[in-house]
């Protein structure tokens, strides 16, 4: 029983770090732009597809059979590509909506989600494709004492945790982060100090979406790459940020990981509840502490 619990806990932790990285990106974007990015799930999916395309298709397109851009380069390239795509969305679509109610930005990104999902369903079909580019170094399993755990998943957990810590450090402890937080508090004042706030906004959106892309690359070798892989994920992420309170970076990370763990452990006790347990927890949090566990606003 304990072994089973630990095993599901590890798998849950794996999901949890993805939740953490996703809600972190969402929180960073919300903090500065006051935009809830519905497309975050679709950009996660895009990240997985970019990794797949880099590995399988780029070689074909340029007529170089046997040419692959593997996992390690993809780990760097994908967040840049997805983040760049995010910046285009911000620059050309979202920017026009800042002076209106934030629900319009939510609806716009919802539209972007539909377009992205629809495009990928048409090009790659709705069923999943396995990612063939898992690096040799991360194949196989490690013995954790209580279970044999896939090396890659362990890597994904550690890597994501490090990324979350770095992001936290940058935002809470460095000058760049201070500017960002200042921009959240009072964009007009930051502008008056000569900071190019619109550029900062674009870069922030790119950064947040880049994190979604990074989660996508890390997920690609674990789950199969499919156009709808982000569709239900985004709603879980929403519940995570409602529980954690979107104001706080640490809150997003901690609640993401905790909820992934809880979800995994639920599988042991009552499997059918595993995909709704997060939503029920959200209900409890709303009843007990409506502003979220780490939330600041009422």
């Amino acid at each position: 029983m304990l072994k089973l619990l630990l095993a599901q806990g590890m798998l849950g932790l794996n999901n949890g770090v993805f939740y953490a990285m996703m809600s972190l990106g969402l929180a960073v974007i919300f903090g500065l732009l006051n935009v809830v990015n519905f497309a975050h799930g679709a950009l996660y999916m895009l990240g997985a597809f970019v990794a797949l395309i880099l590995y399988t298709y780029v070689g074909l397109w340029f007529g170089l059979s046997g040419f692959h851009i593997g996992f390690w380069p993809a780990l760097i390239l994908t967040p840049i590509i997805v983040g760049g795509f995010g910046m285009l969305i911000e620059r050309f679509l979202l920017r026009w909506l800042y002076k209106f109610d934030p629900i319009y930005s939510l609806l716009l990104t919802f539209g972007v989600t539909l377009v992205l999902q629809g495009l990928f369903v048409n090009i790659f079909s709705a069923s999943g494709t396995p990612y063939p580019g898992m690096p040799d170094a991360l194949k196989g399993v490690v013995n954790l004492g209580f279970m044999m755990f896939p090396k890659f998943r362990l890597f994904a957990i550690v890597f994501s945790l490090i990324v979350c810590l770095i992001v936290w450090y940058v935002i809470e402890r460095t000058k760049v982060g201070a500017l960002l937080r200042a921009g959240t508090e009072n964009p007009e004042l930051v502008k008056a100090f000569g900071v190019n706030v619109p550029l900062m906004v674009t870069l922030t959106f790119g950064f947040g979406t880049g994190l979604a892309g990074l989660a996508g690359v890390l997920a690609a070798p674990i789950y199969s790459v499919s156009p709808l892989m982000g569709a239900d994920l985004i709603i879980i992420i929403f519940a995570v940020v409602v529980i954690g309170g979107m104001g706080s970076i640490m809150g997003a990370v901690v609640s993401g990981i905790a909820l992934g763990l809880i979800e995994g452990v639920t599988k042991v006790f009552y499997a059918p509840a595993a995909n709704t347990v997060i939503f029920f927890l959200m209900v409890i949090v709303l009843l007990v502490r409506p502003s979220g566990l780490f939330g600041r606003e009422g």
Partner: protein
Amino acid sequence: MTKPASSHQTLDQAGEFAESVPHEKLARSRAAQAVLWVLLIAAVLFAPAVLYPVFVMQLLCFALFACAFNLLIGFTGLLSFGHAAFFGGAAYICGHVVKVWGLPPLLGILGGGVFAAALGYVVGSLAIRRQGIYFAMITLALAQIVYFLALQLPFTGGENGLQGIPRGTLFGLDLNSPLPMYYFVAAIFLAGFLIIYRTIHSPFGQVLQAIRENEPRARSLGYNVDRFKLIAFVLSASLAGVAGSTKAIVFQFASLTDAHWQMSGEVILMTLIGGMGTIFGPVVGSVVIITLQHYLADIGSWVQVVIGAIFIVSVLLFRRGIVGELARMLKISSV
């Protein structure tokens, strides 16, 4: 990049809610509205003579759904991203009542409506604990519970949905023949539409609009804002449930699609494209979207891309929607 546009700024830029209504505009608006009512009723009565009745019935169900949704977004300023739970959930309840319990369809629809009202009470009381964008996320997450229940509960038929719901009879009329069925649906639609119209123009509806315009002010005037929001939510949910139940009877089928969040998105789009906060907008919007889906069915999954693109374009350029834009051009009130 402005900080949280608090509720009083909310929809101002899109609709012209706050504007005072001069006298001649009022007269013109009354005339326009009378014309629209006549047109709507005539269209509902005579549509099956020109169009395929099942198609029109589908239109009417979605139009009622969108009108119910509009009561929240357009007249209370609450964006529910979980209305599919009421629409689709009620369809299952109605189907079960009619198919398994063997009760007549009218009772099935009533049952669906009552279920949706109860569900609306639960979801509403949780969601109004947070405001603005959080409200949308909470409703979305709660609706996902309903979706998973619809997928997993034993009586719902899982992926297949609830099939073979009998249409039955209404006051001795056999609903399997197209025209009685059609006028049954038409009567439900018109009744629902009238309820919404009366609600909006009642003192209660005025308070809702006051909340939409400026929630803190409405509160300071002594209104129990949360209670008004909750009542509006329950009303909207139950009418959405009636619409979903009716659709289940028409198509003899309750499906997961109707409970999925994408359906919540579609009803938002219908309302947005027709005109949020207008009386007739959601009807126009649902006609546009359903017709579009109908004719684009051939291109398969590209429909989703088209729908998404319409979403983007209407959010960027036509936030008033078709009816809202027309009303502005003709200088009449769209409420």
